[in-house]
């Protein structure tokens, strides 16, 4: 059972944003494959009470800037009944990185993330088509400036380079053809909307949401050649051709592998550095074609594969800031939607280097060990400490109760550490971290085990949780 619990815990760390021991045990009783299926099944209600969020937090409803949006996204990562859907929304946001710095439209960016939720597990073709119609993307990569007699290659280039195939799989002529196929894909009221975006204008009545518009008379209608295919192509035809490519299958497979299994180098290095596990990429690519480009199918194959279940990959990926923040909030059970501090949680993720919907460039964030430097590490530890030090959070009280219910089995510092780690989601610590924790316990708390009337109170447990959160191990997933 313990092995099964540990495997479930591994799955919930990677396919969700962490979990409590209660959730692990609930899923464990279902079995591993049923858990995977449950995560891939989108429940009708995600359990998020939008009415409450919109009542108390105006900007979750309107979305002027990115602050309210960030808080809304972190809140959903923490509390949604469809955690893998949120995880995939974050995944697609990383792959198709779109930034507020240029779009200056919180509402349009929120809509893009909602589109990622809606297409989280579907057909990759549908996702690319929806992405190409996203007004925020049209602004971000200048496709509004892509005209039949004056091609702007920006979107066409990134669609091939960063969004689907990767460098080396197409020619410069293919980029031009791709761009031509997307001429006329623009937004309504273009002049006014781009002027407002450039001016970061709130006037007169707040943000006016962007609307996709296809302008037939601005679409390039001559025959073009794209990846060896000849025709009078529109954007949808191009996406159909892209999705048939082996390079696309490998590209998406490598992204999924990097996100869920093992960090790969940044995308620009992919043409020069082979995948860490080519066989895994082959398996995922096969699933891509076998399922008709279905992402859900690829994820099922991934999560049930030996390369994912392997003990050697566990706790080897650095948590992204949003994963760290939402993971801790899951543990503390701090989910009241009606308080100002849910904005603070998003701010903490920013301090750690990840401002959602404002990635540093179209490449997205450089992840893995690049999340950590001396400044961001301090922010991580401080955030964890601030949350675990609040003894009265429901999750902390629950952990204390769990420990006291099992206190007859706690007769040594090792057994205390074990039960703490179990209650933090069955995480593990290195020997050196365990030793440091043990020394801290005896030096700072110095409490004897097994006294007759002894019980662990919250003021004792919280410092231990703080110390665990300060270990390098806790930064890993």
């Amino acid at each position, binding site marked *: 059972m313990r092995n099964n619990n540990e495997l479930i815990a591994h799955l919930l760390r990677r396919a969700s944003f962490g979990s409590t021991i209660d959730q692990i045990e609930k899923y464990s009783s279902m079995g591993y494959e049923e858990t995977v299926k449950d995560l891939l099944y989108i429940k009708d209600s995600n359990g998020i009470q939008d009415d409450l969020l*919109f009542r108390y937090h*105006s900007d979750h409803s309107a979305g002027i800037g990115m602050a309210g949006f960030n808080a809304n996204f972190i809140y959903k990562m923490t509390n949604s009944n469809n955690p893998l859907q949120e995880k995939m929304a974050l995944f697609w946001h990383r792959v198709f990185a779109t930034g507020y710095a240029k779009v200056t439209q919180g509402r349009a960016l929120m809509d893009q993330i909602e589109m990622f939720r809606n297409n989280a597990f579907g057909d990759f073709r549908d996702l690319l088509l929806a992405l190409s119609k996203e007004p925020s993307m049209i602004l971000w990569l200048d496709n509004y400036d892509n005209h039949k007699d004056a091609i702007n290659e920006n979107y066409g280039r990134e669609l091939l380079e960063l969004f689907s195939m990767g460098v080396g799989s197409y020619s410069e002529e293919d980029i031009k053809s791709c761009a031509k196929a997307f001429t006329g894909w623009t937004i309504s009221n273009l002049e*006014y909307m781009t002027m407002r975006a450039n*001016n970061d204008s709130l006037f007169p*009545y707040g943000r006016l949401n962007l609307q996709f518009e296809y302008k037939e008379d601005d679409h390039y209608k001559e025959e073009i050649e794209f990846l060896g295919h000849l025709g009078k192509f529109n954007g949808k035809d191009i996406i159909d051709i892209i999705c048939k490519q082996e390079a696309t299958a490998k590209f998406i497979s490598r992204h999924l592998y990097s996100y869920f299994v093992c960090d790969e180098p940044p995308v620009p290095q992919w043409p020069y550095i082979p995948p860490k596990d080519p066989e895994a990429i082959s398996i995922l690519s096969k699933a891509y074609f076998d399922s008709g480009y279905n992402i859900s199918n690829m994820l099922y194959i991934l999560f049930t594969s030996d390369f994912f279940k392997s003990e050697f990959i566990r706790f080897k990926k650095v948590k992204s800031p949003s994963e760290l923040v939402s993971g801790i909030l899951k543990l503390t059970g701090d989910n009241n939607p009606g308080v100002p501090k849910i904005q603070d949680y998003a701010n903490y993720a920013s301090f750690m280097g990840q401002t959602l919907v404002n990635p540093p460039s179209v490449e997205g964030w450089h992840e893995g060990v690049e999340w950590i430097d001396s400044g961001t590490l301090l922010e991580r530890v401080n955030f964890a400490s601030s949350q675990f030090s609040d003894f009265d959070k429901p999750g902390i009280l629950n952990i204390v109760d769990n420990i006291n219910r099992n206190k007859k089995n706690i007769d040594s510092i090792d057994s205390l550490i074990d039960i703490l780690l179990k209650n933090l989601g069955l995480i593990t610590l290195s020997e050196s971290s365990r030793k440091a924790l043990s020394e801290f316990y005896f030096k700072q708390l110095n409490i004897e085990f097994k006294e007759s009337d002894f019980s662990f109170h919250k003021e004792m447990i919280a410092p231990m949780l703080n110390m665990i959160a300060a270990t390098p191990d806790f930064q890993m997933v």
Partner: protein
Amino acid sequence: MNKTHNFQIIYEETLGAAAMNNRGFYYPVDLDFGAKGKIYCLNRAHEGDTSGVRVCVLDSDSNYYGVFGSNGYNEGQFIYATGIAVYDEIVYVSDEHLNKISLFDSSGEFIKRWGIPGSKEGQLNGPSAIKFDLNGNLYIVDHLNNRIQVFDKDGKYISGFGSYGTNPGQFNLPWGITIDSLGFIYVSDWRNDRVQKFSHEGGFVSLFGSSGNKNGQFNRPSSVAVDLEGDIYITDWGNHRVQVFDKNFNFIQSLRGESTLSPWAKEFLEANPDEMAARKSSDLDLDLDIEDQHMLSSHIEKLFWAPISVKIDKQGKIYVVDRNRHRIQVYSKKIFN
């Protein structure tokens, strides 16, 4: 419009414009009327940008008289400013996070604040809308305690009624409140999607409404107002409309918003001729196939987007605080003979 009734509500004008500081509104949540035609508009802003928290004072001719209040935990400051009421030239502001009622004079000078957090009699947990009766008693929607509490204007507890639930007289996160000319109390029972009517002493009289988006149904009604003829106006917040009923709760009319440029909005655009020109050449009333009214309102500027409060002035004009559009849409009642 129901033709069997002898009045129609007609759009008049828009007041205000978005601004994070000074003149203008930033996520306005409520308003009330003072002496000499002054309108006190309460702006909550949001946690990501709290600089816009303030009361903005104007009149119906768009004359601007200044702002007071700010974000913070200290006296004269707010975290979650929610409701505003003016009585005897004193401005009262509720804060549903601090559980305080703050008092200012008509020039905006802070006087004092009161309120003790809790759920016991006279304590507050999330005071939202507030309303004075003719005797100078303050009715507070104590929304997280799911009750109405009555205090004198100095904060001394008088009485209360209501509890959590779905039965008549019970509430689920109530929000708005008004008192009609006969002394009846109306409460928008937000999460029960209904409006309840009580006697002046708090006895249950009647209720109407159910969940939905048809006429007479509500999606989180946030505010209610009653005019001198007893006709009822309800901001149907989640359906992004205002519904109008007669005094017997017969549906009369649904308002979806018709905003035009306010004087302050015009001034901004005249000072920015490029933006004015681009705006004039745009189609701001796009024909969109969008069922989700929240989404539709995000695209079409004239529509209400989370209308949050409705108030009626002494002349009978109806003021709708249009939160997500940072403005007030003003309507009037046209009575047919």
